[in-house]
């Protein structure tokens, strides 16, 4: 495909062309710097999509209660932006996680978040022929509060991105995310569409990518076994995980 030179339209051009396109404001996200070949910053949507009723909730200003760890709470690690209690409390369970992650790996409960066609293959992976119950993952929880894994199965549209992020935030930690299907890995066959998100790693951290359109249930089983391996290999170190369009090292 030939590279079209990108340039800023002048104010008269902007006024002259009727603005029916979706590129509102003519300000694309950090992409059209001329000559730049850097990978664009992933669009990480912070939780401005949803705000709690109480502005003081979710460490929005509540000071650290445990005084001897208040110093930790004041550091950057202790003040993370996703939905969790203040960062002090995460130090304590981390040591227990070394053992607990071994147990969690064999009982990863997915959230029912089938969006589109891949959901059918996810259901096929859950039913008798490709039984997922033998991995301990049969209970597909309807509520995110009870789920461990978010298997995003199906195309993510911009309208659904908000609710999906809300689901992800509502899941208690430790939580993992599996991008099932091409549409969630990279946008898939809908990459050039005006209403889809090109891969869910633009909005949430992904641990395992299962490509395919749709991936066979055996493929999803392979992906989940990789996730189990990942959970066991990184036990106790869940907070230090990669966020962004990367493939985690050592997996």
């Amino acid at each position, binding site marked *: 495909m030939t590279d079209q030179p990108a340039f800023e339209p002048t104010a008269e051009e902007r006024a002259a062309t009727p603005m029916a396109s979706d590129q509102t404001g003519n300000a694309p996200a950090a992409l059209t710097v001329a000559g730049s070949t850097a990978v664009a910053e992933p669009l990480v949507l912070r939780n401005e999509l949803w*705000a709690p*009723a*109480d502005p003081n909730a979710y460490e929005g200003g509540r000071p650290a209660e445990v005084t001897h760890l208040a110093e930790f709470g004041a550091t950057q690690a202790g003040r993370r932006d996703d939905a969790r209690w203040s960062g002090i409390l995460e130090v304590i369970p981390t040591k227990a996680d070394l053992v607990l992650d071994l147990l969690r790996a064999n009982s990863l409960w997915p*959230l*029912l*978040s*089938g*969006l*589109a*066609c891949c*959901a*059918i*293959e996810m*259901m*096929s992976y859950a*039913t*008798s*022929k*490709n039984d997922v119950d033998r991995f301990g993952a049969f209970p597909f929880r*309807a509520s995110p509060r009870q789920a461990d894994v978010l298997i995003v199965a*199906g*195309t993510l*549209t911009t*309208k*659904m991105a908000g*609710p*999906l992020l809300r*689901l992800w935030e509502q899941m208690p930690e430790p939580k993992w995310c599996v991008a099932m299907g091409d549409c969630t890995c990279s946008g898939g*066959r*809908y990459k*050039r*569409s*005006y*209403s*889809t998100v090109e891969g869910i790693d633009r909005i949430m951290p992904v641990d395992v990518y299962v490509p395919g*359109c*749709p991936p*066979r249930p055996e493929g999803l089983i392979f992906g989940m076994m990789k996730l189990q391996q990942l959970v066991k290999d990184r036990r106790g170190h869940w907070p230090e995980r990669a966020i962004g369009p990367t493939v985690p090292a050592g997996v």
Partner: protein
Amino acid sequence: MATQTPPRSDAPPKAPAGTHPSADDPHVLLENEYDFYEPIPPYPPRTEREAEFYTLGDGEMFLNMGPQHPSTHGVLRVVLKLDGERVVDIDPVLGYLHRGVEKLVENADYHQTISQVDPLEYISSLFCEWAPVTAYEKLLDVEVPRRAEYIRVLSGELNRIASHALFMGWFALDLGGLTPILWSFIERDEIVEMLAALTGQRMLFNYFRIGGVNGDLNHEFLSRLGDWMSRAVGQIDANIALLNENEIFVRRASGLGVIDSETAMRFCMTGANLRATGVPFDLRRTHPYSIYPELEFDIPTRTEGDSLARYLLRMEEVKQSIRIIDQCLDKMPDGPIMAKLPRLLRPRPGRAWAAVEGPRGVYGAYAISDGTDQPFRLKIHDPSFIHLQAVGALLPGNLLADTMAIMASLDPVMGGVDK
């Protein structure tokens, strides 16, 4: 962020400032936590229907069944207006799976259409391919070879059986039964492995081509098909008996979501939902296409119009589909499976409409060509989209627990609804 609107006149009074909320005074605790009332939706109503729906009557409340819910149709958001347990009105909110297929098709070749429209009704992908392909063949004035037509009908009817098997599983799941979906997935897995041997894919087959089909019948497909056919009728009868002989299922589903034929015609419903109300409209007989005139099969019709009738009708259609498959295998002619067409298709400028009878209803495609190698417009008419409208007429008066059951009985697929 929530806008601060003044509390409603009937809201409980706030606790005086400075007092500790008492643990055993729920009013005070609640009032301190939720002291704002955000109207749904968070903007003034813009249409007459929105104003009618989003105005609460006495004792009514809104319940949001959000885009993620345990029902298996997909991402559908339904705002329910409830009076206690009874549904007064519903407002389905679509678009959570809108992928812009029609726009993408306009920017691609004619052949690439097939892979783009596959995931619309992902459970019955072959019908999603069939309609646009037939429309393009009308634009090109191309005649499909008879063997290809027979293979299309054969694979289509297999897909219909798989789709109805899934319907049975989901309908029971939404009524609370967890076993039938496991049984129906066994059946679906067998059929889908068969189709994978034929087309290469378990779902989203990408099998039909403009002028024929992609690959001929092969040994693995035929051996799996023969193996399955020898067990098929018994297996299907067992699946149906599992539900039909379950008193809870029958009593819950009968009388649920009754539609009469005038309402169904007014809502432009087609397919099994229309046939369950007594109108014997099936495109395979009323407006025959492909080689259906040469095949012998019946069109089951029922008159009750409730969910049980829709379910029983689809199960009878499965048996008719097996009859059709038998005849296709008997009468399969020899010959090519693709018409001779140039690689780069440039149909003459014109318009063509084609409709096929999918498992959910009439699946149509309206194609406009402007003489170039890209389609000018492809409009897909999806039956699930139409049937979801009728839910608004069916749900009021029913209990909340029946909401998803009625929706499941109409068999919508959100990929098709949202395109």
